[in-house]
């Protein structure tokens, strides 16, 4: 056996102190003077980890604090960016990239990084430093998923039993015979649900799985972009983008104001086999009811009571919940622990009324249930007090990740800004 000298023990201690200093010192990191342009609750501060990274969709942070960001458009031919803070100032000094595909979903579980294109899911081994062992050795675990442009982004999350959950968005607004076309009826039953409009479950350790190998874990979900496995409850949670264009398609039932405010954006606690009811129903948070969709005989008044699950939480319409994260860290005050952060990408379907969203929301939880009241946690991404037209928004929040020290990271897919939000007493 090799003799352990005091000096090497000292060196090890020194190195580990140094390492932990780099990744766990939110208290000592100097935030940006303007908190990266964000408005935050008292005690919170923010900085821009990086800017102009590309169209960063979802993000994942490894145990060492390095950020992996999935790009929606290739940057120099690459689709995943790795950002590292090498001097502990909270800002990224190095940026490398790999992978030749675009996409949204990215996640780290154990010693693996998982990343999704708009059709597939790939898996990469990570070494003890949290780095990719071999960038060219991506294992295809899921393949052949539907990609028809509309709602094609694939988001992913993993449970603790060897399963990965993939959202497959419906390439449709309301399952009309002719999509988004006035006067076109809803198809009954909606054939899209066979291969989209739900969450599919696959195994993390099998290769080239597709519909035949996967389980349709939940259905009736139009387009989920935010999803997270809640480890406290051991349950899948998803946020759905509700349907569009009620006024355009049914002006005799919905005026422009109603159409801007309906339907709710929704968060669901999912159990295997659940059906959230798209396209047959939409949720109306002002009534607290599931409403029959007009394409299926609804008139703005008919409710559906018996079928389909209810949301765990409903939000104003069209705000586009793109990122969901259950906070498990200890850095933020205790009330944030096990609560949900949701990144709202911001609406477009409210015109001529001003747009809404473009912020990160916090949903407090008590005893595994949302208390029912959500609050804006981080605002100011758009750089505007009111966003009238979506192209005016300078940044739009999209992905969320928790750092090893409990910092909250937010990605923006307009300019590719990565924000780090910290609690500093």
């Amino acid at each position, binding site marked *: 056996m090799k003799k352990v000298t005091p000096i090497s023990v000292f060196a090890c201690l020194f190195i580990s102190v140094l390492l932990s200093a780099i990744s766990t010192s939110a208290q000592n990191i100097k935030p940006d003077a303007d908190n990266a342009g964000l408005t935050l609750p008292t005690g919170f501060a923010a900085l821009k980890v990086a800017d102009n990274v590309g*169209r960063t969709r979802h993000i994942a942070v490894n145990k060492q604090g390095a950020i992996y960001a999935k790009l*929606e458009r290739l940057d120099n031919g690459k689709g995943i960016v790795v950002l590292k803070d090498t001097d502990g100032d909270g800002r990224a000094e190095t940026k490398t990239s790999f992978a030749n595909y675009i996409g949204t979903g990215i996640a780290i579980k154990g010693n693996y990084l998982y990343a999704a294109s708009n059709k597939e899911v790939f898996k990469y081994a990570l070494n003890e430093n949290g780095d990719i062992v071999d960038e060219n050795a991506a294992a295809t675990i899921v393949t052949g998923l539907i990609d028809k*442009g*509309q*709602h*094609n982004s694939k988001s992913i999350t993993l449970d603790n039993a060897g399963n990965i959950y993939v959202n497959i968005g419906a*390439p449709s607004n309301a399952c009309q015979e*002719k*999509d*988004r*076309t*006035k*006067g076109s009826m809803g198809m009954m039953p909606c054939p899209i649900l066979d291969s989209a409009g739900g969450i599919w479950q696959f195994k993390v350790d099998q290769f080239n799985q597709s519909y035949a190998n996967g389980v349709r874990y939940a259905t009736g979900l139009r387009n989920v972009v935010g999803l997270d496995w809640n480890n406290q409850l051991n349950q899948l949670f998803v946020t759905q983008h509700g349907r*569009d*264009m009620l*006024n*355009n398609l049914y*002006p005799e039932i919905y005026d422009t104001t109603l159409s801007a405010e309906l339907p709710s954006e929704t968060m669901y606690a999912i159990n295997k086999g659940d059906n959230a009811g798209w396209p047959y129903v939409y949720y109306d948070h002002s009534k607290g009811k599931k409403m029959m969709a007009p394409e299926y005989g609804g008139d703005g008044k008919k409710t559906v009571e018996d079928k389909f699950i209810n949301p765990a939480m409903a939000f104003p319409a069209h705000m586009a919940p793109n990122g969901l994260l259950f906070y498990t860290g200890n850095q933020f005050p205790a009330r944030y622990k096990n609560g949900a952060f949701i990144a709202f990408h911001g609406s*477009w*379907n409210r*015109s*001529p009324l001003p747009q809404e969203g473009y912020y990160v929301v916090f949903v407090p939880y008590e005893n595994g249930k949302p208390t029912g009241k959500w609050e804006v946690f981080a605002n100011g991404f758009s750089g505007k007090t009111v966003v*009238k*037209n*979506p*192209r*005016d928004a300078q940044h739009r929040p999209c992905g969320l990740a928790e750092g090893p020290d409990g910092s909250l990271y937010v990605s923006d897919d*307009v300019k590719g800004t990565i924000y780090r939000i910290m609690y500093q007493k």
Partner: protein
Amino acid sequence: MQRIILAVVVGMISFSAVTAQTNNKLVAASIARGKTVYLQRCMVCHQADGGGVPKLNAPLDASTAVNGSDISKLVKYIVKGLNDRIEIDGEFYANAMPAADDLKDQQIADVLTFIRSNWSNKAGPVTLTQVKQIRSKLK
């Protein structure tokens, strides 16, 4: 002889001034009607400022195609819809544009005239005759 020429020239000038005036009025009326169609059928996606929605719905403001001379293409987009995810001015758009084939020829001329002359766009009007001709070949 000179007098005759003068009279003819004067007559021509005043005639063309009159037609230009009526033309302007006709175009203004077409733009006004086109705006109504736009608000009801297009604004939801292309927005009040014609700026579209980044990555989702193409902008019409400052678009090469909207300001271009290929009217057939524009008429076709409206009658048939557009879901080809073509590259538009260097960008791709994920949403599906529905066919609006319930619109009358005049409404299509109006809405195209509106989008070609609104915001920063400065392209000329689209006439009923043009739409009729193009549309008959589409069927």
